[in-house]
């Protein structure tokens, strides 16, 4: 049977995200409880979490989470790591045996820093080096898969219901300021843990509910810029788009969300001249990154969380705030489960991002068209 | 008169500067240290005079509509490409494909010109383009010529040197070529015949020759020492019967 | 406003329609000396020939007078005109006051003083009653002499031929239809008529009507004599101006009117065959005794009588004349000095087309045999269009617009 990456598997999903914008950390229990409420949105064939702020002791190292098919490949990879990185620590990720979780691969983590002379030799910066390394391992080395590669964050995922995956990874033992979760409903069995969400690259993690109809247009656009879409999943494509636009192109968040879920031309036509010029330019230049088809998406980074819907809102999402907390989920109940009385709760419009930045005074609800909002995002 | 030092300038910047000046009403521009700057005078429709010192780049005066350009030096390939109007005076040689598809205006070259000069030159109504070459021309001179006037003077030829190369006037179906001296039949395209000059021809020639003499300070007597021959196409439609309906 | 119209033919009807176009209320009276509602005078020859039944003689539907609010006083006719009192006194003594009066009394046959004209079987050919009485006396095989080969004489001849009458025409001029046709055309027309059995005597005239009581023959100026059973005087028509005698209304050949159809007396208008008005071709005023002219003058007068403003200055003669299946049209004309004439003649085909041009404008034409679309020529005369660029094309069997300059064609053709 073909596994994820060899074929494209459409999926339905549940997503949830919780963050404390002041950076206060909290345990993984809430996110598990939240995603568990939406049990019926997944089918036991994929679940996962991304957690930020969980490795304060290694916050300068890239935390590589690996799936290994067998020990031989683990040894090969460790040799490769040693060649390229200074390894601050390496260990099996603690797990809890569970009846419902079967066929788990070997799951390890390494806290690494690229060796300076390797960077100099390849004439790339640290992040680009890490990206290329991850791409290389994931596309070229059979039996090993890096499913998390950011600093002070980690992804935890596998085949199973998300609440079982959470239990499996003992997430209640971690403390983070931003958690995202995903329950997956793939149409056929991915047969492989790497296919679960979140998908990450560096510190960018994506959980995603949807199917991207523009997948191949986006993929082929990305591949022009050196990305290798090994998983054939929409999530992977979204993560790369985000990485490309944010890290490589250095675009501000509001521009990125407008590239990914741009206003319609008839809306652009109604804007003032300046806005129109920008929006037109974004669409014309980044048309290949327009994410088309139904999606609601949660992107986590070390700076915060962004939730985004497709332009015509073909998938649900809801957001809420209470105090320093920002919640986003597929269903209201998932928020109520962990925050029974939110101060503010709203349904973002299609294409309208919910952006929560760390240390920002308020999580920002971003109505698409006002000047004010731009300033808020840029600040 | 405005002087622009082109050394170190990109052609795009130079040309923008020229366009700006002309649109501001500057009538005469002197470009110094020109070397390989392309497209000078491209599409220029206004009355203006550009004096170039150096070697202008390719497509000098392409699509030009009315300006006057004087080159103190040699011009490169593609000069007067699809030119519609204006005058170019080159105090040196010009290279290949001078006056490609030229429809109007006049080009005077003191020295020699390269291959395919005047290729597909055409005339229309009162637009009667002309190229006057002081020295000799390369092969395929006036290929496809459909209109206008091409004059080669052959001044300063070595004794055994030909005034034009091979395939002169090949595919010609309009216009007139005047060659000062003789041309061997094997040098001509099969569409061209040699005829003698009429009085009208002499009148037409006079004007261009006087201009040549004036521009380049050449004595008219020098030119008049040798008679001209005239080349005309046999047929306005050389390929009229080439096809059979399927 | 009270309108009164004397006469009940085309000009009168034109006036009624002209008045009602402007004034929906005023009362109208028509005084006629004939016992009919308006009928078409040109139809009398068709009536005689049996081509038109009695009920088809009428120029307008029966309900016309009622619908138009016209009181028709038939039969008696107007006897006298009291201009100062604005009153018409009928022959029966009835008085009819008016605010505006139109004299549309038409023409009357010109009957020269010939000895013996008082005999029975001498007829004019002008009114319905003329042909009714004529019809009573006719029988197949009888012989008729017609004096005059003009329009009336020719139409009378055609009708009589239809009825099996032997017809001879005596004409003082040297050709038929001399007022309408030139020599070349007349020759063809004469040939056609002769082929149908008409006998002609040209350059001669009747000096005496022979017979006792009834006509038995005529003797001619040339000395010749002709036997006949009846005589029709069809020399011509003159304006019937009797009613205005002594009124001070200015009369020349007809009642003189200006372009508004006003006579020299305020409130009194004249139109039709009785009126002498401005015209297109002649500098002097003329009587143009044709139906279209009568109608238009009547209409013009009517509009003006009702307070509107209309003028008619472009009258000119025009005729469409058939002789059995042979067709002729003509319009306008004059010729000679200062005129250009171009024509096509195909005598053996009886085709003739002539254009009379002055200052590059069409002044008249004759069309024989092929008359289709000759209205285009009439229109060119009427509007005095410059025709230099396409005049030759107008000689074609069927003239059209194709040869015209594009702009003129579009303007004329689509307006």
């Amino acid at each position, binding site marked *: 049977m073909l596994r994820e990456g060899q074929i494209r598997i459409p999926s339905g999903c549940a997503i949830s995200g919780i963050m404390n914008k002041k950076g206060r950390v909290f345990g993984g229990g809430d996110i598990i409880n939240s995603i568990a409420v939406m049990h019926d949105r997944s089918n036991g064939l994929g679940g996962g979490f991304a957690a930020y702020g969980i490795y304060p002791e290694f916050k300068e190292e890239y935390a590589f989470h690996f799936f290994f098919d067998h020990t031989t490949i683990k040894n090969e990879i460790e040799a490769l790591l040693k060649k390229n990185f200074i390894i601050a620590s390496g260990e099996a990720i603690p797990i809890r045996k569970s009846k419902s979780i079967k066929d788990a691969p070997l799951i390890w983590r390494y806290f690494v820093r690229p060796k300076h002379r390797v960077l100099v030799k390849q004439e790339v910066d640290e992040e680009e080096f890490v990206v290329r390394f991850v791409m290389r391992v994931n596309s070229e080395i059979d039996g090993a898969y890096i499913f998390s590669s950011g600093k002070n964050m980690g992804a935890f995922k596998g085949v199973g219901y998300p609440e079982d995956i959470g239990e499996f990874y003992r997430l209640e033992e971690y403390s983070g300021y931003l958690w995202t979760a995903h329950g997956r409903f793939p149409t056929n069995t991915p047969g492989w843990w790497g296919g679960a969400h979140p998908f990450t690259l560096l510190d960018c993690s994506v959980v995603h509910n949807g199917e991207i109809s523009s997948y191949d247009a986006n993929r082929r656009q990305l591949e022009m810029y050196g990305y290798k879409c090994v998983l054939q999943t929409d999530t992977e494509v979204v993560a790369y788009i985000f990485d490309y636009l944010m890290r490589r192109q250095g675009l501000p968040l509001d521009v990125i969300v407008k590239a990914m879920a741009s206003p319609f031309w008839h809306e652009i036509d109604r804007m003032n001249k300046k806005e129109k010029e920008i929006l037109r330019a974004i669409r014309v230049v980044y048309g290949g990154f327009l994410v088309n088809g139904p999606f609601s998406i949660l992107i986590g980074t070390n700076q915060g969380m962004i939730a985004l819907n497709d332009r015509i809102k073909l998938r649900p999402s809801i957001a809420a705030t209470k105090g320093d907390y920002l919640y986003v989920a597929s269903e209201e109940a998932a928020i109520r489960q962990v925050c029974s009385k939110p101060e503010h709760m709203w349904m973002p419009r299609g294409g309208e991002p919910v952006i929560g930045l760390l240390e920002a005074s308020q999580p920002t609800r971003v109505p698409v068209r006002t000047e004010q909002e731009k300033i808020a995002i840029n600040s | 008169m405005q002087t622009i030092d082109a050394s170190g300038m990109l052609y795009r910047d130079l040309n923008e500067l020229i366009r700006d000046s002309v649109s501001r009403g500057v009538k005469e521009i002197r470009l110094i240290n020109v070397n390989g700057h392309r497209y000078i005078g491209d599409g220029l429709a206004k009355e203006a005079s550009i004096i170039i010192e150096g070697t202008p780049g390719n497509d000098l005066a392409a699509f030009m509509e009315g300006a006057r350009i004087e080159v103190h030096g040699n011009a490169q390939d593609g000069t007067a490409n699809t030119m519609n109007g204006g005058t170019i005076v080159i105090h040196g040689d010009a290279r290949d494909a001078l006056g490609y598809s030229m429809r109007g205006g006049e080009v005077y070259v003191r020295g020699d010109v390269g291959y395919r000069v005047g290729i597909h030159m055409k005339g229309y109504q009162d637009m009667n383009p002309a190229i006057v070459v002081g020295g000799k021309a390369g092969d395929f001179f006036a290929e496809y010529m459909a209109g206008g006037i091409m004059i080669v003077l052959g001044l300063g030829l070595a004794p055994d040197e030909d005034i034009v190369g091979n395939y002169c006037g090949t595919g010609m179906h309009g216009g007139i070529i005047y060659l000062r001296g003789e041309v061997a039949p094997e040098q001509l395209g099969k569409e061209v015949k040699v005829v003698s000059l009429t009085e009208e021809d002499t009148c037409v020639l006079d004007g261009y020759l006087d201009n040549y003499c004036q521009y380049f300070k050449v004595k008219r007597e020098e030119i008049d020492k040798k008679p001209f021959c005239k080349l005309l196409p046999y047929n306005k439609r050389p390929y009229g019967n080439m096809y059979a309906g399927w | 406003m009270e309108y009164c119209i004397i006469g009940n033919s085309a000009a009168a009807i034109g006036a009624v329609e002209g008045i009602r176009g402007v004034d929906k209320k005023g009362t109208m009276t028509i005084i006629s000396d004939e016992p009919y509602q308006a009928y078409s005078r040109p139809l009398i020859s068709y009536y005689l020939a049996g081509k038109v039944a009695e009920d088809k003689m009428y120029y307008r539907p029966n309900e016309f007078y009622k619908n138009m609010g016209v009181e028709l006083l038939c039969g008696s006719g107007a006897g006298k005109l009291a201009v100062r009192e604005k009153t018409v006194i009928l022959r029966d003594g009835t008085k009819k006051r008016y605010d505006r009066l139109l004299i549309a009394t038409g023409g009357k046959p010109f009957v020269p003083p010939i000895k013996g004209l008082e005999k029975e079987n001498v007829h004019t050919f002008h009114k319905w009653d003329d042909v009714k009485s004529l019809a009573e006396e006719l029988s197949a095989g009888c012989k008729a002499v017609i004096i005059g080969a003009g329009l009336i004489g020719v139409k009378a001849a055609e009708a009589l031929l239809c009825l099996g009458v032997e017809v001879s025409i005596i004409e003082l001029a040297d050709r038929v239809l001399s007022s309408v046709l030139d020599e070349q055309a007349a020759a063809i027309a004469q040939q056609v008529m002769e082929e149908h059995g008409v006998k002609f005597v040209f350059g001669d005239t009747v000096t005496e009507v022979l017979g006792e009581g009834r006509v038995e023959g005529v003797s001619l100026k040339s000395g010749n004599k002709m036997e006949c059973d009846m005589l029709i005087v069809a020399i011509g028509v003159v304006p019937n101006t009797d009613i205005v005698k002594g009124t001070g209304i200015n009369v020349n050949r007809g009642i003189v009117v200006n372009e508004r159809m006003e006579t020299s007396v305020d409130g009194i208008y004249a139109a039709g065959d009785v009126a002498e008005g401005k015209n297109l071709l002649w500098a002097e005023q003329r009587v143009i005794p044709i*139906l*279209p002219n009568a109608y238009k003058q009547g209409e013009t007068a009517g509009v003006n009588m009702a307070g509107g403003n209309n003028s008619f200055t472009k009258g000119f003669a025009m005729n469409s004349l*058939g002789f059995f299946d042979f067709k002729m049209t003509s319009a306008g004309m004059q010729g000679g000095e200062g005129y250009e004439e171009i024509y096509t003649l195909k005598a053996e085909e009886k085709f003739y087309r002539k254009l009379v041009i002055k200052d590059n404008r069409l002044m008249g034409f004759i069309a024989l045999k092929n008359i*289709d*679309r000759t*209205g*285009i020529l*009439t229109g060119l005369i009427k509007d005095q269009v410059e025709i230099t660029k396409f005049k030759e094309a107008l000689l074609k069997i069927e003239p059209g*617009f*194709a040869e015209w300059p594009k702009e003129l064609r579009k303007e004329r053709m689509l307006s």
Partner: protein
Amino acid sequence: MKRVYVREEYCAGCGLCQVHCITAHSEYKGDIIKAYKKSFPRPLARVIVEEKRPLSFSLQCRHCEEAECVKACITGAMQKDPATGIVINDTARCIGCWTCVLVCPYGAVRRDETLHKVAVKCDMCAEAGGVPLCVENCPNGALEYREER
């Protein structure tokens, strides 16, 4: 009033206006084949097509405001309908004197002598109502039925 206007620049001179005119004025309306093969006499086309290549155009009665044919008609057969403005010849009263032919400045009145002598002319297909059939069937939109511009 609405009239038929020809745009000669688009008239292909095909003559279909005449075919449809004839059909419309035959006893077999809507059936061209019967109109041509069975009507006797076959009606005359009321639309005239002139051609002088490359020019061609068709022309129908203009239904003049001041209709010369109406004023000149000696029988009163030719009348302009005050309501519709359409000039119609009452063929029952027409005696074929051709005065209308003589006065029509467009040459738009035709002589029909097949059975009786009567003048025939465009009646705007008034009987059928709607767009005259010559206009409706012009394959190139060369005929327009519209108000005067």
